């Protein structure tokens, strides 16, 4: 492993200043490290410092009415153990459970998932369908950006030099579901994953697909095929067909293009059915 120094600032200001020091590419940001540490072995000679966020006050989880705000360095396991997360954001709960195994989730974070923007991240599709907002702090203050705009591609985000992810906000609880296909249930990477959520406020579905490079994407054509919280079989078939035909699907060592195309349709139908059942159940509970 290349040699680097580990910097552990205790204030946000110091962290931002540290990021702005030295040449671009000289510093890497460390949250839980479950993705970054693996890559450090292959880091280029430019890497001189690793900036650890562990002393920043961002291991938080707050409910403010319907709005859930998750600090960027909260371990995923803490999010998973919050009973309200499982109840009010079932798709998010399923997606978290799909990340690694328990020991990995004790360190992995939401901020790390977003900042590293891995093409196969299990969290990004569900963040898309929940309209999650990324709260960013930097040299010129704070800004918020939707996950869709935050992600530029594989391993690329809109984070500018000196910026850090402070938290992620989920505007409203939504009946949601997250389903994946992969070789091993734990500690593996999804070949295809589909997230579905129904918004009770605007009465529209959100659908997203992940596991396919370069990044997780929404499926607007398929969304438009669904008209109610309880879509008909015809609507589901049409949504699945839109998704499989309009999506650009890459093959890699994890799955062929053909297999992925098949999976998108199957998982989409199942995810919508599952979220729809939760929607009806929620309707009975909170009329």
């Amino acid at each position, binding site marked *: 492993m290349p040699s680097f120094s*580990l910097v552990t600032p205790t204030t946000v200001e110091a962290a931002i200043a540290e990021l702005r020091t030295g040449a671009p590419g000289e510093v890497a940001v460390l949250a839980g490290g479950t993705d970054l*540490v*693996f890559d450090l072995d292959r880091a280029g000679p430019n890497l001189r410092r690793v900036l650890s966020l562990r002393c920043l006050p961002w291991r938080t989880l707050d409910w403010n009415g319907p709005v859930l705000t998750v600090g960027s360095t909260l371990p995923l396991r803490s999010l998973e153990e919050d009973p309200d997360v499982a109840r009010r954001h079932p798709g998010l709960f399923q997606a978290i459970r799909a990340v690694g*195994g328990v020991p*990995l989730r004790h360190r992995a974070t939401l901020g790390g998932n977003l900042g590293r923007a891995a093409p196969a991240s299990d969290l990004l599709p569900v963040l898309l369908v929940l309209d999650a907002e990324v709260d960013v702090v930097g040299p010129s203050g704070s800004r918020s950006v939707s996950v869709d705009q935050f992600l530029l591609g594989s391993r690329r985000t809109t984070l500018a030099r000196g910026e850090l992810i402070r938290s992620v906000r989920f505007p409203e609880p939504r009946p949601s579901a997250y389903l994946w296909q992969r070789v091993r249930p734990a500690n593996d990477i999804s070949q295809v994953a589909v997230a579905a959520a129904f918004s009770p406020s605007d009465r529209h579905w959100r659908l997203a697909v992940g596991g396919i490079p370069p990044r997780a994407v929404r499926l607007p054509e398929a969304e438009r095929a669904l008209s109610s919280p309880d879509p008909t079989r015809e609507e589901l078939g049409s949504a699945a067909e839109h998704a499989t035909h309009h999506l650009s699907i890459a093959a890699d060592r994890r799955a062929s293009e053909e297999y992925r195309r098949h999976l998108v349709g199957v998982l989409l139908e199942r995810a919508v059915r599952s979220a729809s059942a939760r929607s009806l159940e929620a309707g009975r509970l909170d009329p």
Partner: protein
Amino acid sequence: MTNRPLSLTVNGKVRPLDGVPESERLLDTIRWRLGLRGTKEGCRSGECGACTVLVDGVSTLSCLTLSHEVDGSSLTTIEGMADDPVGHEVEEAFARAGALQCGYCTPGFVIALVGLLNERGRSASVDELLADLGGNLCRCTGYLSIARAVALLQKEGR
């Protein structure tokens, strides 16, 4: 690069360490500086669970953790399980169920299971525990006997 001193409490004993590079992984510190070879290196990429240790009682993949990130923590490895009441019971259950063949994955399984029992309490269901052990790989295909060990433990432990 400057290397700050590092202090870990390892299996109940304070172990100050000097000269640990800030880029060193906890797995390497445990095996090569502390000489505790019970913690195994499998994939070194977070896929197999062989390197699992407890950091302040919480199961952690030591291959994906920088040692200086856990400075000041209390570390428990497989060598510390004999002195841990739950750890001892888990080891006994593994031994009685014959839940090992080559044994390479066993320390990781034992530590991960002890971590789960710490978190969930002894009343956790066998299914729940097995699902949450999904991050540990056994390449001798010994999962059935490991499942028997968990069942044995939960039947007698409650």
